[in-house]
């Protein structure tokens, strides 16, 4: 395939009884107002991924628009994290993983032999489900990435800027030398976001960034995601439908490793075209 499948037709296949019937993995994804290749910062094309013999992603194609928030939703085990981690080649760390298909970023196939995954991860940052600050000071946590890159500019200014963007500066400006582990869970997660932003990536991947946090911290981070998309492209995995609705511009729904439907978030939530998407967003889904 050279262009993403574009089909705004409602899917008419008989997939109404999920679980009762074997799932048809070869159906095309339903797309509403698809993002063109020119507007995509990352373009996933016909991407397959296996853990050993188990195929976790089937022919996934998805264009991710620049400076927007794309949400990945779907039931547990459908491959959201796998797809997310494919974008910055984190899956390379698992020896049994095999892939085919392409993920292009600025016209470069990230899975080409000529590409260094370490460099990919400097451009595509990641925030994990559980806050994972290093057992270092707040400052050293944020400065970690810039130091790897032998950052030439003013490191103090960069750390301050990153912490401000992560809406954490006011709370930690007097304890930059204190341990990152001394912060609350929500603060730690914002620290991790600041840390990811300090490497000045183009894209930030977030895998359920608020699932370990209380509602207040969740609010703050959702607000934050809204603000940072001015500077970054964000891809976020979430189990929380309200959250997907609140923070994302576009939403992609996955099921058993297949991209079922994608489109503008309001469309996916108010007017889903695929029966399974509808069942999922209405919470009638396993």
């Amino acid at each position, binding site marked *: 395939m050279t262009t993403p499948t574009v089909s705004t037709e409602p899917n008419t296949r008989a997939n109404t009884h999920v679980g009762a019937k074997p799932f048809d993995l070869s159906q095309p994804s339903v797309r509403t107002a698809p993002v063109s290749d020119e507007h995509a910062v990352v373009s996933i094309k016909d991407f397959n991924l296996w853990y050993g013999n188990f195929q976790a992603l089937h022919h996934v194609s998805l264009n991710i628009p620049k400076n927007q928030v794309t949400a990945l939703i779907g039931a547990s085990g459908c491959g959201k994290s796998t797809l997310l981690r494919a974008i910055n080649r984190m899956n390379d760390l698992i020896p049994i993983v095999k892939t085919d298909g392409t993920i292009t970023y600025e016209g470069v196939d990230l899975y080409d032999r000529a590409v260094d995954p*370490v460099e990919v991860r400097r451009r595509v*940052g990641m925030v*994990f489900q559980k806050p994972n600050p*290093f057992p*270092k000071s707040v400052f050293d946590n944020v400065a970690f*990435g810039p130091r790897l*890159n032998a950052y030439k500019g003013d490191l103090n200014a960069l750390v301050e800027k990153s912490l401000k963007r992560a809406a954490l500066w006011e709370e930690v400006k007097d304890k930059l030398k204190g341990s990152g582990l001394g912060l609350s869970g929500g603060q730690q997660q914002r620290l991790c976001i600041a840390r990811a932003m300090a490497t000045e990536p183009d894209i930030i991947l977030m895998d359920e960034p608020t699932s370990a946090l209380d509602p207040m911290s969740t609010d703050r981070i959702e607000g934050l995601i809204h603000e940072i998309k001015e500077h970054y492209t964000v891809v976020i995995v979430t189990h929380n439908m309200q959250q997907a609705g609140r923070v994302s511009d576009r939403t992609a729904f996955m099921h058993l490793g297949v991209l079922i439907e994608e489109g503008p978030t309001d469309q996916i939530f108010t007017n889903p075209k695929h029966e399974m998407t509808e069942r999922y967003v209405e919470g009638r889904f396993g």
Partner: protein
Amino acid sequence: MERKTPGMLGRARAVGLNKRADRRVGEAVIGTLLLLCALVSVVTTVAVVYSIAEETFQFFREVSVVEFFTSRVWTPLFENQNFGIAPLVLGTLMVTSIACVIGLPLGLGAAIYLAEFAGDRTRRTVTPILEVLAGIPTVALGYFALLFVTPVIRDLIPGVNLFNPLSAGFVMAFLILPTVTSISVDSLRAVPRSLREAGYGLGASKFELITRVVVPAALSGIIASFILAISRAIGETMIVTLASGGRPNFTFDPRQEMATMTAFIVQAGTGDQAAGSLGARSLYAVAAVLFTITLVLNILSQQVVRRFSEKYE
């Protein structure tokens, strides 16, 4: 709380809930035996410490503390007695430093390899080999140093005495290596996956991840392993007695014969010093210094390990 109700014993017996005398007696006996085991070790420790302290105290009634710590001549077993412990401390430091310079980096390197690079199969083969190394009797290592390593060193470096701290330190490096490696491997592998992913996610290469994330996070465990290794090297006796010699020599030249504190204790203990003589008591004074140093090191390493266990989350 338990209370006593008339007639309850009979009813408890009827349904099998009564206390069983035989079980209680058995448990009491076992408890007492275990207590005795614990007591024996405590009592011996106290007895040893007491006897060292007592003899040391007697020693310092005749020898000035100032002389002991400042004089550079140690000849307590000779006619003309001198009691400056400096040459012995220097000998111990010399051998220990040589052992550490070789053994600590090598042990840490092996640990990093085993924890971060080696496959499961390699790890499973190498770990038992290290344990064998740790189990070689030190007297065998001592003869190995004297008979095999010393000749090689004397060929390579001119002017090396038959007994010298170089050979002893070199062989001792392999004695302390397993200590460093096994403790360091454990602490490196205890660094959680989430921290590794954080590092990789920020664009660290494997080497950068190890030097900037994994080793710093495991640092307290690694330092603890170093301290234990140093403490073991300081207390080691057979290798130094056999390979480094028994002549106390205040020198910084590792080609010369140098006696360590432990080597002197062996010498004095196997010699024909009359009990209660000053020569015999000097043994205890040296033992007290040695004991203090290793005790401080062990406490230090425990302190470090405690910090280490609070490290993550």
